[in-house]
């Protein structure tokens, strides 16, 4: 009973996140200006982090949590570096 409910919800959530990842990837490839591409990449990072959390929940494995944390940290650093590059023209002054 509970496995059926949870399995259905987890599969639906994973498909929704994959679709959202594809939409953000479309924005990253298409985006008319550079900041739109950075925005799409940032959204892709968040979606990938949530997808890792969901896969960890589906497997009952706690160790997917660390990879989700690493993806969150990498997304933050990437977005800050890209925004700083867009603003100043260089990352480290």
């Amino acid at each position, binding site marked *: 009973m*509970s496995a059926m409910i*949870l399995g259905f919800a987890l599969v*639906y959530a994973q498909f929704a996140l994959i679709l959202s990842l594809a939409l953000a990837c479309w924005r990253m490839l298409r985006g008319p200006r550079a900041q739109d591409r950075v925005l799409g990449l940032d959204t892709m990072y*968040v979606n990938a982090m949530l997808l890792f959390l969901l896969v960890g929940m589906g497997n009952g494995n706690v160790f997917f949590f660390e990879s989700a944390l690493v993806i*969150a940290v990498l997304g933050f650093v990437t*977005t800050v570096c890209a925004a700083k590059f867009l603003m100043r023209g260089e990352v480290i002054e």
Partner: protein
Amino acid sequence: MRHLEQLPPWAAIIIALCVAIGASMTLLGGLGVVRLKSFYQRLHAQTLAYSAGTLLTIIASMLMFSLLESRTVLHELIIGVFVIVTTPVTTLMLSRAALRRDRDAKLGHDEIVPPQRRAGPAKPDPASATPPIPAAAAPDRPDR
């Protein structure tokens, strides 16, 4: 999925609701990132994935692992606190960079929006000799 059978049904329903609503919110954010017209509107859509999606998924994950291991598992709070702390930083830096780039390119902040959304069905006056602004007429320009 053997471990999912150990959960009581009320917890399964709560976790499933949290996961489904969070994923739907994230999908809404992705749709907004694609569908909205200007960059400053897309910034708002992306925040939906950050706040609602992350919060609900983390609540579901904490509840599930706490019930499975019959102790309080709270390490997903690290991701929540990290996302809450870093989201304003990234959004602020990205919007400031976009503002500066728009100012350098002599664009107003809503000039990427196609003009039929703002001006309605107003036709250009044929008597006026001013040509239409090419920046507002071409919303999908190549990358600058």
